[in-house]
């Protein structure tokens, strides 16, 4: 029982997501942080207020972290199709041709 609970906790902290989700995260991190940086700079420059630029940058970054770090469900929409446990026994008349493999 305790092991099952520990497994759940471990899964939560590991936060595994499928490969399509990882691709999406990579794209989001780069695009969103660049956007946050650009917005912070231009707003700060046109209002001539550096404190505002820093606040926008930090809050925007925190928002990106919240979007990207936890394993949200939409990162798990293309789960990997694993083979069944135990595998498939090969047919009895299977011949492995070395020349084809080379």
């Amino acid at each position: 029982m305790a092991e099952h609970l520990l497994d759940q906790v471990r899964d939560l902290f590991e936060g595994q997501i499928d490969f399509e989700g990882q691709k999406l995260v990579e794209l989001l991190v780069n695009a969103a942080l660049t956007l946050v940086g650009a917005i912070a700079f231009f707003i700060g420059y046109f209002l001539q207020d550096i404190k505002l630029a820093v606040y926008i940058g930090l809050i925007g970054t925190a928002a990106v972290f919240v979007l990207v770090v936890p394993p949200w469900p939409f990162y798990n929409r293309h789960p990997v199709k694993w083979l069944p446990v135990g595998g498939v026994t090969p047919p009895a008349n299977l011949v492995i041709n070395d020349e084809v493999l080379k």
Partner: protein
Amino acid sequence: MYSSVVRLQNAFSFFTTVAFVVAALIASTDLLAPRTPGVGVLKTTNVQVVRGRPHYYSSKKEEYAIIKFSLDADLSSLFNWNTKQLFVYVTAEWPSAGGSSGSGQNASNQAVIWDSIITSPSADHLANLGPVAMKKLKRSAQGKSIDPSRGRLSIKNQRPKYQITHPSGKVAEQDDVVLRLHYNVQPWVGFLTWNQDADVWRWKTLRNNLSKKFTLPSIKKKDETKKAAK
């Protein structure tokens, strides 16, 4: 990006890169903002030379010059969104008398007599003030991010912060002494910059920052009648 920790690390790493690039952009906007500082008046009001010691227990006695001055300058164009503080200082300079062994023909003696830190409203919380003065300073900015009026200096008969001397210990009756105003712009991000000798694109040199030449007087003699009265 297979685990939360890895995503956190990668996101933070890119964040530091973005922060660095944005800081570099902010520093480069300094070059776009024009600087036109100018001095209206810089003159001495009272000059004295007295004898004194470097500190209480030293046996050496030296001559110190106390130079009071008036200053009227407009340094407001030096403040932009990236300015944290403006460090302003006044130096007294005089040529050296042509030293021994061929050195010193071009040398000049320079000593700071007064300086001041002028914070931009974004850096007011860092000023070296007590609670009452701090509140007053913050309120004077009226919520604006840049306050040009802080750059307009108008001080009359200012007592110097520092009494100056020469390594030889003698400054009395020194000719050709001038006062010069300097500034140092300390930004939030970017390089430190001082007043420059030549115009650089939009940054103009500090105009009119030398006072007239004056001579340091001889040592002030104690008043004989005052002594007799005691």
